[in-house]
């Protein structure tokens, strides 16, 4: 791995980038590097890290807004929010541990650059939905801004959405401004037992159709549930389907009972309280049930919620899998045995039939060179993406090839 250049300010970052731009030599862009093993391998001469650009420089709890330099550790952001009983509603997921990287080091910039959202995404939106403003450096080394610090802003094109989820291939985020929300007073989780995948997903979708603002829904089949660090749930010895309710205390109590009644055909749930709930949903935020294992590859599939079990059934015809369903079935983490193509052709075929997209999150470097890591695009979308890359980064300086060979 090349040396890491650590910019402490946006200006310094521009200065560090300039000689490479001049020589048209591409660079790898990272935050802390926790997701360095995700994406297609790249040929770059240097690595520039934003991790030394840190600090929260604006936080207005009553306006539900915070601004931070992009290298600010997520833990620092979340600690500052917690001190005001607030949170990032999209509960960013940490892909470090599952992909063989470190745990808990991710930066706030990388959260938005990779649009990393957790279980609450289905209810309250993704990371990209909470991004209000950016300051960034493009592949020519020019600084630009988009959005701002206010929640409603349609002034000019929406480059925040354009840059979110582009994995550092369009621009280097230097500052991010984002929406925050109050943390719930109380959390409860209804845990249903021993349901097969399709019934578990049906239950989760039924729960989302109720007027109780269910904020998290996961289904863990038996083997995967057994990997939980949460001992009581891991020891159950069967599949669990968990529904989360968050609100003021009285509301949580009322809604928990109302849900239990409305969903009683699915059995009698165990109800776990705030402390245990926080522990359970907390470990899911770092994908504890899909630990790093060089013998397996991990896929992330997004599909229509009710299609989740069908996608999995299609894939299981070709290979053994261990899966976890999130987003009421719409997000599936799929572990498959390591192979030369990580099962890409069968998995992508299943996704093509049922709709959605698949991303290879964990695989050997050789596999990630050989198959498309991100979902292949239609020729027209590919052309538009190529056009955007050419606008932001015409010389392909920033993370070239990380998402797609020509991007």
């Amino acid at each position, binding site marked *: 791995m090349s040396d890491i250049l650590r910019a402490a300010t946006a200006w310094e970052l521009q200065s560090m980038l300039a000689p490479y731009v001049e020589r048209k030599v591409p660079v790898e862009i990272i935050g802390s590097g926790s997701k360095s093993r995700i994406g297609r391998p790249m040929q770059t001469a240097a690595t520039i890290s934003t991790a030394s650009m840190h600090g929260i420089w604006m936080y207005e709890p009553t306006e539900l807004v915070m601004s931070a330099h992009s290298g600010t550790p997520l833990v620092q952001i979340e600690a500052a929010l917690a001190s005001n009983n607030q949170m990032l509603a999209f509960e960013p997921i940490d892909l470090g541990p599952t992909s063989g990287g470190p745990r808990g080091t991710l930066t706030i910039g990388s959260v938005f650059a990779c649009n990393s959202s957790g279980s609450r995404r289905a209810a309250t939106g993704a990371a990209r939905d909470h991004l209000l403003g950016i300051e960034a450096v493009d592949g020519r080394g020019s600084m630009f801004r988009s959005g701002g610090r206010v929640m409603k802003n349609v002034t000019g094109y929406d480059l925040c*959405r354009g840059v979110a989820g582009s994995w550092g291939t369009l621009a280097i985020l230097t500052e991010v401004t984002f929406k925050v929300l109050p943390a719930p007073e109380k959390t409860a989780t209804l845990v249903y037992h021993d349901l097969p995948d399709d019934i578990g997903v049906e239950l989760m*979708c039924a729960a989302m159709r109720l007027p109780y603002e269910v904020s998290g829904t996961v289904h863990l089949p038996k083997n995967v549930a057994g990997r939980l660090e949460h001992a009581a749930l891991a020891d159950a010895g069967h599949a669990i389907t968990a529904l989360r309710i968050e609100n003021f205390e009285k*509301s949580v109590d009322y809604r928990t009972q109302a849900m239990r009644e409305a969903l009683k055909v699915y059995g009698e749930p165990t109800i776990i309280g705030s402390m245990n709930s926080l522990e359970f949903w907390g470990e899911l935020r770092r994908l504890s049930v899909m630990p790093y294992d060089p013998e397996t590859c991990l896929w992330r599939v997004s599909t229509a919620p*009710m299609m989740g079990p069908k996608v999995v059934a299609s894939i299981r015809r070709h290979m053994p899998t261990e899966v976890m369903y999130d987003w009421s079935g719409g997000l599936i983490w799929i572990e498959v045995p390591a192979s030369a193509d990580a099962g890409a052709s069968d998995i992508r075929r299943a996704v093509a039939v049922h709709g959605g997209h698949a991303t290879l999150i964990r695989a050997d470097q050789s596999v990630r060179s050989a198959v498309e890591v991100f979902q292949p695009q239609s020729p027209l*979308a590919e052309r538009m993406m190529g056009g955007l890359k050419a606008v932001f980064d015409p010389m392909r300086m920033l993370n070239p090839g990380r998402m797609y060979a020509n991007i």
Partner: protein
Amino acid sequence: MTLQMPQPDRATLNRRDEITAELKRIAGEEAVIADEDGRRTFETDGLTAYRAMPLAVVLPDTTDMVAEVLRYCHREKIKVVARGAGTSLCGGALPLEDAVVVGVSRMNKVLEIDYDNRIARVESGITNLAISNAVSDEGFFYAPDPSSQLACTLAGNLAMNSGGAHCLKYGVTTNNVLGAKVVLMDGEILELGGPHLDAEGYDLLGLMIGSEGQFGIITEATVRILRAAEGARPMLLGFDSSEAAGACVSAIIATGIIPVAIEFMDRPAIEVCESFAKAGYPMDAEALLIVEVEGSEEEINDRLAQISCIAAAYNPTTIQVSSGASQSAKIWKGRKSAFGAIGRISDYYCMDGTIPLSRLPEVLRGISDICASHKLRVANIFHAGDGNLHPLILYDANDPSSAERAELAGAEILTLCVEVGGCLTGEHGVGIEKRDLMLKQFTETDLSLQMRIKSVFDPDWLLNPGKVFPLHLTVHSGTSNAA
């Protein structure tokens, strides 16, 4: 009025008959409006001070027909202005004399409703409210709710990334759309997203939404539908100053309550809306908050009681919880018809800045001073929870000097919004109205980047030209330096 539009291209104007004939061949006689009276219906939008007779109007009824019309216009280098219901308040749908208006209003069908997956797939000419109406029997709704929701189309909402009174809790258009079918200017059809969450690859859908009809014409969309709460009820809080009302909003949010809506009106707005809707707004208040919460009956009572306690610290002149469904409807009717109610007593110019909530009192003072200096009256309506401010500047459209002063005052108000850390437009869009103010908020480098993105989707700058960017910065917008 003072804003200039690009000079129309004489050669295109001279080809009007030929172009109309070709459009009729492509889309059918009944889909093309070529006569003068018919075209006049489309000569303006919600920004009625500006008018331009379009070259022709086409109202296709399929995506393929839109594609064929655009393919023809692209080949012939004819400009196109997309149109939904024409309710834009910023001139976003203002025609150009040398442009064909392509309206999606005939494409208004619900194509699919899927409650399990919580999505609806609709044609983009459907009105905003019709989406909610289509799913309300099952207790669902489509969240963004601009005041014009009875008339405005989803297509326009997508173009402008519209918001509404309830987006504090539910977000704006971009947060509630999962997929779209987009016809690009060259007639190619781009399919984005679907019933699943989050984009594969770059978020082209996120870029498309809010691109003011300059990237493509969206003909279909997959939107999220949400299960409505068990119930909702607003309360009215009157205060003797806007400072007190603003501080009360901050205090509510500080306790961790996110009401589904927090609307603010100043005294002139209260008076006009009350006389129109008879909603029971307090006439003695300088500032009024409408705060709405959701949940079960007991939850609503708890939450409203909690808010009443918080408000008590700010010496409210009125604390009144809605007495029931009928008053709730009137309270919202008063707020949502505010623009119409004010329109009954005067011409008005509706501004749409966003500001940090903490700056509300000083911004309201500034607005008052600006309008006084131009000898104009103003009423303020404010989505207080999210900082989106709508000053309505009252003027006399029959008096050119009054109209010009209103525009000047508007520009000064929006500049003030930017100076305090806000932005030029929160939910209406830039259109022509705020086009020349863009350099107040962005650098030329920022705008140049945005314009290069426009060129990716529409290299010849044929779609909705003359909008969003100051004319002097655009090389393709049909001005004399056009390529």
